[in-house]
């Protein structure tokens, strides 16, 4: 594999292109505060970003940092450092990327110069983990705190009900709500202790209101992708999730997602697609290959567009009463769990997420998606180093086949380009497009 095979994404929306100015402004703000030695939390997706805002806490998302390292093709360097330290190639490449980064950071006493962001991720004063989605997330921060940064760790533990229990049974509901409430209380106690600040519930409520406004625009934007031709594709989608991590709870995020919604709505009204001739409408399953997001543009060049993605998907949006903001976070989490449960959580029950992202393999959701988004096929990235997200792809393929929808599973990774086999994958993509074409001609 040569780096020349990797292509960066071209985006179609003016709004997402504007992020080039918006995000650096945010990072500069954070950097200035880092120089003032303010406490810095490294966080995992699953930690409610609204809480971080409420504590006015500086934060980094190692997972997102890893996607940036991947997109700049720096990740293999960090991953190899971790591998020489004994971390297996099978472990999550977000993790190994970060572990390599940490090792170099500690050796040099500062961010390694090859870091993609100026100053990289700063020295953490605490680690805020979340066990949502997968177990490597438990072990990851445990390892960082053991080997590199001996700082306090709080990992939240948002369990979700198995697929075959009734989450509406009051006993079951109470069982999980108790855990969620107590876990959130533990998280807040930890943050109060580490920041020396008391949680201002009124402030948190205001943040939640802004956060939910932004998310409602995001949900409505994604719904517009049902239109033919689709007004928005995956390159914009995967880029537009970033403000949800860094800016949610701020007016700037509301403005961003409103602007995006208006742009996508206008494109829908004008029937302005992302390709000249939209031939195939696909669902994307799994994490994207961050090192080669141009693959989406490559498929677009054959008239193939993605109108839905299974990962980082906020799913349905829940109207929750924010008068008690902590209960609102708990209820939001629980409602999402119940929503996913209703759609079939046999392959991925762990979607209980107190933040805003999720994944899904809700098998009966597939029927709705195929119908509402006019799906012709599905492409799935079987990520070797992230089994948690790719688990269920074979099951989803089986379910789609019953609906007469062809699908392709190809093997690669999200951050490690060494697992990308360009010729092989493109050959398979071409063959798949032919299959879809035949299926369409055959009227399924």
């Amino acid at each position, binding site marked *: 594999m040569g780096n020349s095979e990797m292509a960066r994404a071209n985006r179609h929306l003016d709004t997402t292109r504007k992020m080039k100015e918006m995000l650096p402004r945010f990072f500069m703000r954070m950097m200035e505060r880092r120089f003032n030695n303010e406490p810095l939390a490294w966080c995992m997706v699953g930690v409610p970003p609204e809480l971080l805002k409420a504590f006015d806490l500086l934060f980094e998302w190692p997972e997102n940092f890893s996607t940036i390292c991947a997109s700049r093709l720096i990740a293999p360097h960090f991953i190899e450092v971790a591998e020489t330290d004994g971390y297996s190639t099978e472990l999550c490449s977000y993790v190994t990327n970060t572990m390599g980064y940490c090792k170099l950071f500690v050796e040099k006493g500062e961010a390694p110069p090859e870091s993609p962001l100026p100053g990289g991720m700063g020295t953490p004063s605490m680690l805020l983990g979340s066990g949502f989605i997968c177990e490597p997330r438990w072990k990851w*921060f445990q390892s960082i705190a*053991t080997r590199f940064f001996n700082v306090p760790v709080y990992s939240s533990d948002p369990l979700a009900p198995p697929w075959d229990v009734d989450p509406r049974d009051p006993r079951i509901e109470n069982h999980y709500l108790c855990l969620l409430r107590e*876990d959130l209380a533990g998280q807040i106690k930890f943050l109060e202790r580490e920041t020396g600040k008391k949680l201002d519930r009124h402030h948190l409520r205001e943040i939640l209101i802004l956060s939910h406004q932004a998310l409602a625009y995001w949900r409505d934007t994604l719904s517009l992708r049902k239109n033919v031709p689709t007004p928005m594709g995956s390159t914009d989608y995967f880029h537009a999730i970033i403000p949800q991590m860094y800016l949610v709870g701020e007016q700037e995020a509301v403005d961003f997602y409103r602007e995006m919604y208006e742009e996508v709505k206008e494109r829908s009204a004008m029937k302005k697609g992302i390709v000249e001739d939209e031939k195939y409408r696909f669902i994307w399953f799994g994490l994207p290959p961050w090192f080669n997001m141009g693959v989406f543009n490559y498929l677009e060049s054959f008239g193939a567009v993605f109108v839905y993605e299974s990962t980082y998907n906020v799913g349905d949006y829940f109207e929750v009463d924010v008068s008690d903001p902590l209960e609102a976070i708990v209820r939001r989490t629980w409602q999402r769990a119940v929503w996913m449960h209703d759609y079939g959580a*046999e392959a991925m029950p762990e979607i209980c997420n107190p933040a805003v992202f999720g994944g899904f393999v809700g098998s009966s959701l597939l029927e709705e998606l195929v119908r509402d988004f006019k799906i012709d096929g599905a492409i799935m990235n079987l990520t070797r180093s992230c*089994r948690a997200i790719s688990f269920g*792809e074979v099951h989803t393929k089986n379910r789609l086949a019953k609906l007469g929808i062809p699908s392709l599973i190809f093997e690669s990774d999200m951050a490690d380009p060494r697992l990308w086999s360009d010729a092989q994958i493109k050959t398979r993509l071409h063959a798949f497009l032919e299959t879809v074409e035949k299926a369409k001609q055959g009227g399924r």
Partner: protein
Amino acid sequence: MEDSDNHLFKENPTIAENNRRIRRLKKESGKPVIGYLCCFAPPEMISAAGALPFRLTGIPGGDNSEADAYIEPYGCAYARNILARAVRGDYDFLDGLVISHSCDMVQRLYGIWNYYHPLPYSYLFNVPHQLTPWAQRFYKRELIFFKDSLEKFTGQEITETALRKEIDSYNHNRTLIRDLYALRRVNPPLIKGSEMLNLLLAGGVMPAEDFSFLLETTLAEIRRRHNEQTTGPRILGWGSIMDDPALYRLIEKAGGSVVADDTCIGMRLWEKNIPLPGDLYNGFLEQYFIDFQCPRTDRGPGIKRFDYLLERIDQYDIDGVVGYIISFCDPHKFDYPDLRDLLKKEGIPMLLIDDNYSFEPAEALMTRLEAFIEML
């Protein structure tokens, strides 16, 4: 060390034998058979509900192709093998399935298994990943739900008396197993690691009373053994599930003695008894959650989480550790660098074997083991 007449010591209790035994028991007793994976849901409860608990094991190196139609090729080969066997009908005697949420793979295996091959009874025993007070409360509530679901399925109330009786039987076995482990502390050990593992595997597929008999007769036999031979370096086996003695046999063939372990079918389950009399649910909490040293449970950062292992190394006078990790076993793969560094600091050599649940190629493994044991 003398050879034994006990067939368990000479060969693996074959899968076919286990299946024949459980079918016969099922027929004779009229009780349903409930298969289980992992150790967070107490098997005592299954027994007290009037069912036969049956610990599901795989066949290392077995054919997993039947699993490909349902789950991805990247994943724990042990779990894939279990599913392949279920699809093939190898577990056709099962009436129920209990899977604990120990790791991601088996948690999700639960849904897929039940979706495609549902059994009359199934339960996912959900387990928090931390030991916080609220996680412990969750575990205890989960015990109640588990009890309720078993009662509903078998129609038999799990009375406190029945539960105490089962715990008492299991405690008796725990005591006997500790007695057997004590015979491994002497040098040379009176019982081989492969023999011990065979015993424990046999115990997973038979009622507690039958296991007691097996343990008692074995103990009596072992105590008659004479330590005439010298033995090689004393090895502790650490890592992923070990449901076949193949690796221990290779170690023994290479000149080492496996005298202690830290795997899930090993000392972990038998280290202490559940206090009787006492709060039974607190007893389960401590036995199967707090004190059960699976790396999937977050015990906080730092190397103190390995203190129990250092104690064991000291107790059993260990010369070296052989780590065994099944491919894609994240919890162990994460712990390996920390443990390797700690053992190095303590002067305990460690060899890591990364395996796709096949113990193959045996020649290559043997070469590595011989080199390691020679070094010790």
